[in-house]
């Protein structure tokens, strides 16, 4: 009780276990990929390293969504936009690294600018040859957009589905804008055919392993940040806002500041996820802005269990793993049935998502309410009756 609101509380046993597991994966996968020969049964092929790296990036995106949706009740249907913007910032850096090795051999301009007859580098591209600047932009662009967008929306008290829909409008508008070649970011084809990152060949096994480990590290960091936030009084206020926004105001909490803060942090996390995603999948294009992508990311969180940080991570990995498996082999023509069935099944039989249901089930046995398993719908959580004590 005395240590209630301190970092140690954020790093509870579940968190430590979770972080340890992630850390182990971060080390083991690259190791098994680089150190073992192809023939070894334990060898992890490079394509799996990239694939897992992609999952980890999606997990970070899911985590960022869970932070605002699960804890503050803000349902963003446009979070893919922040992910994509972070991705574009990284993509622009990678494009500039190509230098004169593009098909037209233009040392300054990326290929798509050459064949569209552009003569000079657009302003937005300036500085992206510098890695630190690009990394700054990875955080700043999504963060700034979230800040401005959130400032307007939260101040005007746009809530619920209205907020969800305008975030969707935002990502849709960005999708259309980025589609345009005139916009200067490669149109529909986006940015691709990357060569180096920080001087290392993006396609080399070592680079891939390093990118994977970095993604894991980012996810761990993101997880710790989320834990610290939700375990502090800040997190309590978020939940209070989720349950009864007006009541929180009457208690003197400036709801919009809290929302804005958490929304911006979440957008930055999504941006980082996008930035790590791009070199691993090798392309960033406007498709990432598509509203369906954002909805899908929300779905991962719901599958894993909203309001449980580990759930977001597990949901993202699980759904994407299912997608990878289902889209190959004999199942390929039917994979939408399986995936759709999975979503319906989870809602019906695991109403709190996978982790949420487990947590709830365990909480029921431990009797007291757990911090990590708030009941999103506000429905009854099993507790021992007062009267019986």
């Amino acid at each position, binding site marked *: 009780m005395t240590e209630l609101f301190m970092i140690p509380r954020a790093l509870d046993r579940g968190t430590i276990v979770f972080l340890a597991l992630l850390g182990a994966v971060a080390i083991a996968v690259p190791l098994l990929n680089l150190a073992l020969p192809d023939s070894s049964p334990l060898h992890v092929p490079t394509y799996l390293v990239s694939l897992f790296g992609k999952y980890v990036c999606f997990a970070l995106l899911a985590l960022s969504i869970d932070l605002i949706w699960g804890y503050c009740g803000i349902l963003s249907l446009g979070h893919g936009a922040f992910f994509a913007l972070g991705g574009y910032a990284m993509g622009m850096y990678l494009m500039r690294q190509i230098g004169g090795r593009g098909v037209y051999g233009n040392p300054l301009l990326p290929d798509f600018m050459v064949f569209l007859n552009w003569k000079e580098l657009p302003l937005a591209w300036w500085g992206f040859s510098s890695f630190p600047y690009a990394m700054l932009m990875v955080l700043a662009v999504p963060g700034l957009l979230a800040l401005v967008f959130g400032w307007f929306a939260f101040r005007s008290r746009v809530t619920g589905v209205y907020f969800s829909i305008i975030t969707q409008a935002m990502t849709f508008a960005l999708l259309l804008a980025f589609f345009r070649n005139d916009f200067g970011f490669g*149109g529909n084809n*986006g940015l691709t*055919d990357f060569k180096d990152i920080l001087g290392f060949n993006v396609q080399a096994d070592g680079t891939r392993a390093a990118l994977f480990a970095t993604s894991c590290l980012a996810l761990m960091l993101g997880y710790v940040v989320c834990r610290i936030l939700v375990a502090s009084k800040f997190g309590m206020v978020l939940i209070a806002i989720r349950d009864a926004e007006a009541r929180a105001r009457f208690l003197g909490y400036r709801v919009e500041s809290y929302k804005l803060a958490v929304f911006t942090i979440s957008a930055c996390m999504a941006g980082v996820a996008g930035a790590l995603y791009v070199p691993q999948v090798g392309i960033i294009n406007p498709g990432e802005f598509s509203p369906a992508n954002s909805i899908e990311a929300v779905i991962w969180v719901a599958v894993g269990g909203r309001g449980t940080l580990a759930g977001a991570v597990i949901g993202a990995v699980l759904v994407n793993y299912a997608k990878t498996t289902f889209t190959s082999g004999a199942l390929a023509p039917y994979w939408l049935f399986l995936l759709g069935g999975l979503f319906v099944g989870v809602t019906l039989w695991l109403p709190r998502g996978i982790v949420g249901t487990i947590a709830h089930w365990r909480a029921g046995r431990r009797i007291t309410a757990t911090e990590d398993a708030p009941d999103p719908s506000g429905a009854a959580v099993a507790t021992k009756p007062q009267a019986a004590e």
Partner: protein
Amino acid sequence: QETIKVGILHSLSGTMAISETTLKDVMLMLIEEQNKKGGLLGKKLEAVVVDPASNWPLFAEKARELITKDKVSVVFGCWTSVSRKSVLPVFKELNSILFYPVQYEGEESERNVFYTGAAPNQQAIPAVDYLMKEEKVQRWVLEGTDYVYPRTTNKILEAYLVSKGVKPEDISINYTPFGHSDWQTRVAEIKRFGSAGKKTAVVSTINGDANVPFYKELGNQGVKATDIPVVAFSVGEEELAGVDTKPLLGHLAAWNYFQSIDTPDNKAFIEKWKAFTKNPKRVSNDPMEAHVVGFAMWVKAVEKAGTTDPDKVIDALPGTTAPNLTGGTSEMLPNHHITKPVFIGEIKGDGQFDVVWKTEGLVPGEAWSKYLDGSKDLVADWVKLKCGNYNSKTQKCGG
């Protein structure tokens, strides 16, 4: 028993499934047929189908999976340019082979990719030539979906038209988003643009879903081919299956293949195709033929090389010939594009095309457009120069 695996990378779900599923089916048919003939190098072919679900990063992931996990010898796949761009680095890195069957904007020649669809000079330019000569068109609306293929094609066409003396004010370029479905304003605008007293035509690079509502609106607003003809580069038999074509009589499409072309090869192919899909109404189209030609070339090249080793097959492919379904013989060029006949067809009432013009002989595909500043000096030659972007001015490979 050991098999030779052939990867098929076409979307079976999502927005592109509408076009790409057919190509998967064609590949399955070709492979089955080859196996009936005894396979290749004494082994059976085995198709490995994956679904990249119209999701571009997923294309890259699936390509990687096909090559490393399934160890396919060759991949037939992609439709949109972005999906091709997405998988390019993968094919280069893992040194495998991709056959790309769709007409595209050009400006590319990669060692690992073989382009069996049309380059702009095999579709767009001849179509415009036809309209200028046959229909005396002087005023042009370049109407496209907002993405790279239309943008680039229109850039090339614009330069070409201007070089032919068309005045800039007689060219109107417009783009609409993917899936644009309300064409009222655009069709009215086309009518307006066409009322300046000069013969006007529309060059349409509208892609995919947007075509059906576009043609429906044309039909309803009574834009007749005799007044303002529309020539399209992305509308084939498959797309027309969704529209009642009676009001569209006479509008045009430019392709390297039409189902209606009357040759024995084509007849036989269509029959096989209908039998294979157990659907007597199934149509055939240009990208399908591109796969037919590409597959035949690959088979020949493997036989010639005696192995499926990518390096050997890549070297064996240029110069390989295969009969196309329209009576000619296509050849794989050193720039990894092929020679193709070009046909202009007019839409008939039954959803088929009536060929009204065709090129003399076959047109070789050009990777780099003469009409773009950035590429006019580039040459692709993987046989002698071993380079996809040799700059004839600076005499250097690499642009």
